[in-house]
């Protein structure tokens, strides 16, 4: 990752917290997948979460938009607490965008229809306006010429960029990324990461689960390491990579950075 694309992380972040997770626990049956998570995310902050598989990183961010339900503790997103209240859940989902590892584009709809689905049916936007909005974001992710095509006709990297644009069309306040480049062929990873860097430049709050350490170094405010359902350690990228505090962190880093 060239240093030209690194985004300044020294700017003072606002103290305003947009996501607060307080002593959150989750069990899958008897398995304690998330053990006492405490996390505060500030506006415009960019966090990268890494860790071995099974550590709960995906489950953590899936709890933030209620794709998974937590059993103990509190999660508050932009002042709205996540409980069984359906209205709250829907509100949170319109403010939080999610990008999946396997893109999950709707194959029976064209690209532009994929993007306008949310705005039309959730934000009740007229079709013309939704399409203009969609084209704006398609251009942002450099894929405007494919608007009338179908997902099956695009490459993996193109599909993921469309997926990012689809989430952006809802004008979210926070973007969650669940291993966005893990399912891509190597030559397509850069095009997706470039889009994510552009997003960072514009000040979007981002939580990214990823193993792309170059991306973390150049863009993240904080890098968190998770293992066995706990956030073991978190620090600025520089401190995190240069001075890992815990043995588990050191072990993990030695395994992925070689």
């Amino acid at each position, binding site marked *: 990752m060239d240093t030209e694309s690194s985004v300044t992380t020294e700017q003072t972040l606002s103290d305003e917290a947009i996501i607060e997770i307080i002593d959150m626990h989750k069990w899958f049956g008897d398995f304690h997948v998330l053990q006492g998570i405490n996390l505060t995310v500030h506006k415009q902050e960019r966090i990268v979460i890494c860790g071995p598989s099974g550590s709960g990183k995906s489950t953590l961010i899936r709890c933030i*938009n209620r*794709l998974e339900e937590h059993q103990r503790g509190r999660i508050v997103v932009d002042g709205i607490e996540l409980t069984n209240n359906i209205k709250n859940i*829907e509100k949170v*989902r*319109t403010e*939080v*965008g*999610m990008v*999946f590892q*396997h893109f*999950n*584009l*709707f*194959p*029976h709809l064209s690209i532009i229809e994929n993007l306008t*689905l*949310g705005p*039309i*049916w*959730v*934000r*009740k*936007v*007229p*079709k*013309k*306006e*939704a399409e203009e909005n969609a084209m704006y974001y398609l251009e942002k992710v450099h894929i405007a010429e494919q608007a009338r*095509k*179908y997902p*099956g*006709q695009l490459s993996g990297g193109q599909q993921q960029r469309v*997926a990012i644009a*689809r*989430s952006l069309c*809802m004008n979210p306040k926070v973007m969650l990324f669940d291993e966005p480049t893990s399912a891509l062929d190597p030559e397509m990873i850069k095009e997706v990461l470039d889009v994510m860097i552009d997003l960072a430049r514009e000040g979007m709050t981002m939580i990214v689960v990823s193993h792309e350490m170059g991306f973390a170094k150049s863009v993240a405010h904080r890098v968190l390491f998770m293992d066995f359902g706990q956030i073991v350690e978190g620090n600025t990228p520089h401190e995190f990579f240069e001075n890992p505090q815990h043995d588990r962190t050191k072990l993990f880093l030695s395994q992925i950075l070689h």
Partner: protein
Amino acid sequence: MKNTVSEKVPFWLDPKKRAILFQFITLCMVGLLGYYLVSNTLHNLEKQSIATGFGFIHQESSFEIGESLIDYSAASSYGRALIVGALNTLYVSFIGIFITVTLGTFMGVARLSTNWLVSRLAAIYIEVMQNIPVLLQLFFWYAIFYETLPSPRHALHPIAGVFLCNRGVAFTVPKTHPAHAYMAIAFLAGCIIVYLVRRWSKKRQERTGQLFPVFRVSVGILLGLPLLTWWMAGAPTELNMPKLVGFNFIGGLNLSPEFIALLLGLVLYTAAFVAEAVRAGIQSVSKGQTEAAMSLGLRPPTVLNLVILPQALRVIIPPLTSQMLNLTKNSSLAVAIGFPDFVSVANTTINQTGQAVEGVALIMLVYLFFSLLTSAFMNWYNKKMALVER
């Protein structure tokens, strides 16, 4: 360069010529076989003094048919008898298809329910019904009628107005009244209005983004207009109740044991296969699709309508269509329990005229017609719905 143009290849080594030769020989053999069989048949028929040709269609049939949708008597021709049979087949098939799709969809969804009890029961139903031959199921239901159910004098009375006995089932129905015709017209008018309302609301949504409660309004119109017509026609409430007269029920809607047993057997059997097709279709839509849709903030009904169903239906419709065809073909088993479907009537015709070849050929032609129609539909549907890919 030496000119290496065609040394003459002997025709038995040239693949193209060999292919032609092979096909020629095959056609000759098939032709000879056909000729041999046909000449044997004609010879044997002549020996047994059996007529050939379809002239018998105009002859008097001299047999009665138990149930018929059109007028028929023993003085009618064989042709008319066959039409009665065909209509009966269509009648049973249509009603059967309608009930099967409903029951099958219900069972398929139940199989996927998060309620353990419901999903297990659905699984048991599907497994049991699929693995018992349909003919056995037909015999079983027919036996329930003539062995288990009581005589009309002691008919079972499970709900008001419905009588179960070994002569069939008698339902109470509203007495025919001119208002019914008006109600039917009102319903059709309602369908047209609903269609127009949907078109209008879709355009409105595209223009302004506002949603219109189309579903509730449609239901209201489809139910309300006929109801309004009924009320305006004087709200006739007279019922046509079945009454026990002598040994039978007269009045109301009477369904014979043969018809009900056939319907029950076909529906319960085929619905199990439809349930599996529905289940496979719903499961074919990956969980990620639902998650992506929910992450956008879409509500469950919208997710179902716009994301899951379109994809699921693509997978469900082809096997569903073949099950519908199977039901129609299986209705031919009516001959075993005495329901006068097409095969049954054709069988009687064969027995009386001796013209087996024409009879069996007719049976095959009629069913072939249904099958080809269904195949054509499936091909058209598959082409239209194919997901666009590279």
